[in-house]
């Protein structure tokens, strides 16, 4: 079940780019789908969890590797 259905590559984008890209990708996703967001914007560290609370989509995983933040979101 825990397979990433889509990857949103928002590396290099800055506010509000990553969230807008993520929102677009979620439109094509099904409920329960796992989406992966890759971003380099340091603002995403606070913004993705906030967006998750606002939009009701679950943020299930957060990690960082060499300046790239990775977020896994489950579509509500």
């Amino acid at each position, binding site marked *: 079940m825990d397979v990433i259905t889509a990857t949103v590559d928002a590396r290099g984008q800055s506010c509000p780019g990553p969230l807008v890209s*993520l929102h677009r990708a979620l439109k094509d996703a099904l409920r329960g789908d796992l989406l992966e967001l890759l971003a380099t914007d340091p603002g995403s560290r606070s913004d993705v969890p906030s967006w998750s609370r606002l939009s009701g989509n679950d943020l299930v995983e957060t990690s960082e590797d060499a300046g790239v933040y990775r977020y896994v979101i489950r579509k509500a």
Partner: protein
Amino acid sequence: MSENTTTRDAQPAPADAEPAQTADAAALRALIDQALAERDAQGINKRNKITIVAWDGHLDRIWPSLILSTTAAASGMEVSVFFTFWGLFPLVKPERRRKTGRDWMTKALGQMNPGSTAKAKLSRYNFAGMGPWMLGKMAEDYKTPHPTELLELARDMGVHLIPCQMTMDLMGIGREDLIEGLQEPIGAATALLEMKESAIQLFI
């Protein structure tokens, strides 16, 4: 509900199992409905919505308004932006900028306000256009979308971009002067209604 319906531990027994409970549940439901109706009547039933009053037409005001609008839309919120007074000029079509107005006074206003998001000035450090150019360059380097791009994005995302009817009349700006894809112009009362039902209201 049938016997084999999966129920969680915390849930009460199926309603049809216990007639007394059904009556209790109905009474409780009525009480909740009444409380909700009272809250509605008081007009404090806020929606998951943000209304921004975009009063200022400067680049450094219209920019954050559009960042907040698109982010709110991306978060599943309803968004209305009410463009009034100087805030209306960024909505003027590029080809109509500095050409709006119906008489010498409104034409002078049209001349003094650059019009369109592409030509909006900074409220400070404008330096005859050097400031906006530098900010645009910095934004490009940091991949922050320019207001012109954000405005288009907002429209695509279903953000309600609402011009102020009074400002249009006062400043001699017609629908034909404004960009496409805007909502019908509204007055102060409708703007207040938008604000009243919103969980967040901002004046920028």
